[in-house]
């Protein structure tokens, strides 16, 4: 998960107490190191355990919410197995349909069509794309010491800019798409940059300013969706014009499946962020400011400039998410274009420990949960909100590593990045 930082590779546990090896001692064997990783609560291990606990708690909730199980529980003491089997059926059915919606569905696959086999994966990837981009945005800002709550606003602005260029301008193929994507980047960067500039110039807390900018973007969109030239004729619905086909991100697996080239954009962005953070001088400065702004200032770095720059880039990444939504997933802007991505991005970044590699994995997981949740609701009636609950539980457990450690009797270690993320409000 921390593939972005090879310099950490020979450290035993990024988030734990590194067992002190005297200089010149032989490197411990792989087995010892893995054992230590578990014992001292390695970040990756803690993340997986948090995931596990969240799934278990989610299972309990499915059982409790299931009417059959509750009915059986009424006569629990006369036939306890009834309750257990009903619960097992509900849980099994729920998680099975989650799996079918997200990864592989035997029923549709048996039809033998490409769409039938790869449909669920395609849905997962479609959902994961903007989550990865948003997660990269939040994670990057966090590494520089800022809490970007403004994903929603930045995504909306990215979508407005990209969408407008997409449907109002008419350019040749390829060029149109490139210009539209750039427009989305500019829109998001503008919105993020405002928050960064305010922080740098006036010290205004970015949590407050980004939340306010979310409201402004949301209502700006509502205004635009009632405006001629933006709204789609015959002006009955709050929906924009349709993006030219020249400006649309091409589907990756044919027209039958929704997964589109935005996924590549997201993966490229992850690669870019990895380079930025671990290989570039700018990233060095951003990380230094994020980890200790006083030392950074003392070393001659401009903390204010870092704040502005990182919010520009973070905004650009969310703008890219908005562009990907409007040029790939949907073809017209609606009021709910953000679809909660801006906020889920925070949890994706947290789960991914604010590293690009981790964020990609976390984005895929959350994308799968989103895709599977739809299927679960339609085939078993378990409300899609359960997915939200599971996501929240994962984050809750990651934010409270002490809880996971005590559940699994791991030895205490210092709080990792997760704790910092959860405590990062007064940054």
């Amino acid at each position, binding site marked *: 998960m921390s593939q972005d930082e090879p310099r950490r590779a020979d450290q035993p546990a990024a988030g734990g107490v590194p067992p002190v090896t005297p200089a010149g001692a032989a490197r411990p064997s792989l087995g010892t190191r893995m054992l230590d990783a578990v014992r001292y609560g390695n970040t990756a291990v803690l993340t997986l355990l948090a995931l596990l606990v969240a799934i278990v708690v989610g299972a309990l909730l499915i059982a409790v919410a299931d009417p059959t199980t509750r009915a059986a529980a009424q006569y629990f003491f006369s036939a306890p197995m009834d309750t257990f089997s009903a619960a097992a059926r509900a849980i099994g059915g729920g998680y099975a349909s989650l799996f079918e919606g997200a990864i592989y569905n035997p029923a549709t696959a048996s039809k033998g069509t490409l769409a039938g086999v790869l449909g669920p994966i395609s849905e997962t990837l479609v959902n994961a794309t903007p989550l990865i981009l948003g997660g990269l945005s939040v994670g990057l800002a966090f590494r520089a010491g800022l809490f970007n709550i403004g994903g929603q606003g930045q995504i909306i602005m990215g979508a407005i800019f990209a969408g407008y260029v997409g449907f109002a301008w008419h350019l040749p193929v390829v060029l149109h798409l490139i210009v539209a994507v750039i427009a989305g980047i500019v829109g998001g960067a503008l919105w993020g940059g405002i928050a960064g500039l305010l922080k740098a110039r006036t010290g205004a807390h970015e949590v407050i300013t980004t939340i306010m900018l979310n409201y402004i973007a949301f209502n700006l969109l509502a205004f635009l969706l009632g405006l001629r030239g933006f709204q789609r004729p015959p002006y009955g619905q709050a929906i924009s014009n349709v993006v030219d086909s020249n400006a649309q991100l091409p589907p990756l697996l044919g027209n039958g499946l929704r997964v589109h080239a935005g996924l590549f954009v997201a993966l490229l962005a992850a690669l870019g962020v990895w380079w930025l953070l671990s290989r*570039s001088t700018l990233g060095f400065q951003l990380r230094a400011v994020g980890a200790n702004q006083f030392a950074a200032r003392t070393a001659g770095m401009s903390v204010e400039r870092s704040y502005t720059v990182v919010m520009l880039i973070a905004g650009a990444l969310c703008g890219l998410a908005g562009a990907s939504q409007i040029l790939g997933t949907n073809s017209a802007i609606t009021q709910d274009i953000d679809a909660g991505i801006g906020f889920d991005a925070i949890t994706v970044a947290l789960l991914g420990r604010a590293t690009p590699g981790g964020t990609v994995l976390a984005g895929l997981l959350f994308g799968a949960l989103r895709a599977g949740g739809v299927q679960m609701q339609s085939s078993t009636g378990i409300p899609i909100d359960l997915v939200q609950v599971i996501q929240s539980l994962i984050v809750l457990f990651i934010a409270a590593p002490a809880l996971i450690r005590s559940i699994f009797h791991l030895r205490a270690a210092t709080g990792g990045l997760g704790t910092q993320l959860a405590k990062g409000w007064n940054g």
Partner: protein
Amino acid sequence: MLPLRFSSEPDLEVTLKLELRGITKRFGPVVANDGIDLVIRPGEIHALLGENGAGKSTLMNVLYGLYQPDDGLILIDDISVAFRGPRDAMVAGIGMVHQHFMLIPVFTVAENVELGHEQTRRLGFLDHRKARRLVAEVSARYGLDVPPDALVADLPVGVQQRVEIVKALIRNANVLILDEPTAVLTPRETDDLMQVMRALRDGGTSIVFITHKLREVRAVADRITVIRRGAVVGEALPSASSAELASMMVGRPVLLTVDKGVATPGEPVLQVESLRVVNQNGQVAVDDVSFSVRSGEIYAVAGVQGNGQTELTESLIGLNRPTAGRIRIDGDDVTGESVDGILSRGVGYVPEDRSHDGMVAGFTIAENLVLDIFDQAPFAKGMSLDLKSIGDNAEHRVQEFDIRTPSIHANASTLSGGNQQKLVLARELSRPLRILVVAQPTRGVDVGSQEFVHRRIIEERDSGAAVVLISSELDEVLALADRIAVMYRGRIIGEVPAGTSAEQIGLLMAGAGNEPAQGGPASGTAGEAP
């Protein structure tokens, strides 16, 4: 509810014998205390001597109930006790004065003393009168001179410390733990504290005196236990020489004096003229300060912490913008220039709080070693970092400065205080310097590394840098300085040549400026002639 002392009679018969037997405390794989045996006899001043990180504070936190030992026993009058928290320890008669005071500045002394143990009269009214009376009584009995009705914020640090002592005594402390009590005191206040310690001992209170300062130990302790790397390495009597104690602490012979040749000062490099700095609270922290430092000399700014040295240093490297005055480097006016700009003029800076300002704890040693030069060749190629150069540089510096670490890729936070300081020095001295500003270079640095740090500072002087040394350690100032300025309440109240007696400088540090302040607004060359 803890019983408060009601009578003013010293109850000598309750003095207790305290024994620690085989105390072991581990943090993960790190053994902080390894089978420590310690006996505190009634009515003695027992010094616990050891380098930073030797495990002194851990041991005392075990004794005070803040940590549970993994192994071993605490015995009071030969009966084993278990403390689940400080409250248990207090009930058993153990009091602790922490290095950082636990006082509420806007409360009066009496209010602070009763805090947490409020005595009430009928209907739940606080009994302030009794608290005030107790403070006055205890204060008078031991000559503590603590005014019960003064606001803590208005009291000098030395008196605040005595408030903490009063707090412990009123809670019936028979064993008083003082954790590095002299770190924040002037030499004069330190002497006062030692008087108080002796008075308490004579009144039957045992004192555990935690410190790493050899002079104080020899002056006041009855017995000395030396701790190294979490284990007791031996006991010593105060008659032992400083060199003996130091070598016990470090585990090898230590040179306590620094070999220093005569300074050969050149032209003035740094000139400060009528500098005035207002701090964040709007107070004038640096008031009309002027001095000039020549190449090849060490100019020391002595003074008790908090007299404006921090603000002065920060304005020297551009972190603070002075409200008035000028700073010149090689004749160029650099007032208000950015930190980056000033550093690139060949200024090296070792901040007083290195873990806060000098390094990024979560960065590797290699990264910290290029913290202020990461964007220059050979560490940067265009927008990219050259990881190989950064690694090579780190290997080189770690070797040259003897930074003890298993790997250059370990986080700086894993280093001990002394090694962290070497890391900061290694970085700052890795480029040619015109000026070196070092603040409190050996604070929290073990005796063994102190020697090294001092030597490197002198080497830098000898290679022609103008060195500004800011230190509140009188010994350090006397050992290193070629000229000494004493700062008091934001002003330089005296500038004396090297070789001035410690007593005279101590008096200046306490504000007894019998010399007129040097460096009027118009003279930018104050103290030009030593």
